[in-house]
């Protein structure tokens, strides 16, 4: 084994890179969650008529603009030069996922708010319409939205998918971080987002029919997520020395325990089992499994953010 010394000791990179922390993990988690909510809401909107929808479900989409704002706030906190944040919006840099992300985030607001408004139960809407009646544009917008509700639903699905994938691609394009550097990360984060989205909804007072439906959907998401995890690992295992070295962080490396217990066992297998049992016995999904899913979803981002920085090309080469 070679003996290596370096005089470099730059905070944030040495001895182990630590540029991104909880804020970013939380942002990625909330981004995925919002993506999930938007897609599911969009699908619901394209699906059955409003009459069959529970009040909770009809209000659900409002969570999107709120949660994304929370997420962006945390992202903003992570910036070393927050007052230069406006710089994100003076350019669109095709090669930079983060640049795309910044613009996608902007898209989320109009799209989700409009649809959320259309989905909102009539009594609430009536109340606000007459309160805001002093500005005619408001009615105009409402009518426009109601006329284009299908388009809006599709837009939400599209924006949601874009958002979900972007949260993964943000990390996935970093060639310097073999653990992140995988095409699977985009889909993986999207599916995980959908799963957390569904779980989030299950926390509210939905109709049994809706719960059962989401439960089944979520099982699908979890299975897909497991498949993508497998793909991701296989990709690394069959990759170069660096990739294999990176994979080691989950097999004996410092993140082994956390990953297998929090993400795989607690966050995926347990809820899958739970949902499956509920399904077999025809019982209505409760709130335990969704909570596990949410924990797992957050753990996935948290662990990935740190493990990815730990397993840089150079670092792996040195170990």
């Amino acid at each position, binding site marked *: 084994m070679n003996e290596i010394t370096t005089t470099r000791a*730059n905070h944030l990179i040495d001895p182990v890179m630590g540029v991104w922390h909880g804020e970013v993990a939380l942002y990625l988690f909330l981004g995925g969650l919002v993506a999930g909510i938007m897609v599911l809401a969009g699908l619901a909107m394209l699906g059955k008529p409003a009459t069959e929808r529970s009040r909770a479900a009809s209000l659900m989409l409002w969570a999107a603009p709120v949660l994304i704002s929370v997420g962006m706030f945390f992202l903003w906190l992570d910036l070393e030069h927050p007052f230069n944040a406006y*710089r994100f919006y003076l350019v669109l840099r095709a*090669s930079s996922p983060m640049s795309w992300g910044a613009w996608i985030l902007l898209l989320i607001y109009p799209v989700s708010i409009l649809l959320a408004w259309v989905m909102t139960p009539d009594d609430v809407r009536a109340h606000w319409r007459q309160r805001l009646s002093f500005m005619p544009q408001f009615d105009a917008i409402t009518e426009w939205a109601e006329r284009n509700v299908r388009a809006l639903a599709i837009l939400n699905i599209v924006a949601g998918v874009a958002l979900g994938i972007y949260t993964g691609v943000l990390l996935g394009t970093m060639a310097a971080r073999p653990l992140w550097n995988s095409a699977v990360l985009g889909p993986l984060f999207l599916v995980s987002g959908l799963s957390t989205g569904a779980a989030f909804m299950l926390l509210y007072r939905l109709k049994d029919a809706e719960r059962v439906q989401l439960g089944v959907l979520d099982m699908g998401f979890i299975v897909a997520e497991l498949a993508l995890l497998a793909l991701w690992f296989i990709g690394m295992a069959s990759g170069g020395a660096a990739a294999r070295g990176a994979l080691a962080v989950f097999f004996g490396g410092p993140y082994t325990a956390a990953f297998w217990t929090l993400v795989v066992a607690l966050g995926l297998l347990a809820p899958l089992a739970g949902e499956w049992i509920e399904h077999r016995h025809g019982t209505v999904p409760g709130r335990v499994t969704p909570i596990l899913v949410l924990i797992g979803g957050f753990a996935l981002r948290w662990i990935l953010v740190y493990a990815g920085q730990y397993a840089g090309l*150079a670092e792996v080469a040195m170990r």
Partner: protein
Amino acid sequence: MSGVRYAMVVDTRTCVGCAACVIGCKTENGVADSYARDWVYTETAGTFPNLSMTVRSERCNHCEDAPCISVCPTGASYYGPGGTVQVNQAKCSGCKACIAACPYGARFIDPNVGAIDKCTFCVHRVENGTPTTSCQEICPTQSIYFGDLNDPDSEVSRLLAKREHYVLMPEAGTKPRHFYLK
């Protein structure tokens, strides 16, 4: 690529790892306390008493395909004169994507500015009539060479033509402009 293509060459045969280049850079460029744009790396191979050791001075490689630039969402990182990789701190949001994207750990946040700092190849010198970078100027063993790759008569071109050399982590695919003579 046409025009000037700046590149740096470090002779690992003569580099003794004294770090004069580090101190010389820090004072020339006012690098923040306890941060450095260049550093000394040593690697010892073999077992006693059959040993070999590589000693070299490292810094930003001013990559031709610089991931730090492609990930930058604000355009703060850009290709500057002679194909060097530069940062406009006024544009930098401190999102740190470029730090994560750099395989070489060449970038850091200047705590006094909250923006990225890294080796500039001393463009303030080489673009303004001083032919040397500061680390090159001070090096007591004169192990650092700097010049234009597009000029076949430049010292760097001639050295690379006649001596065995390598770049760091070619597998990262960044096409470094910083070469090491064996």
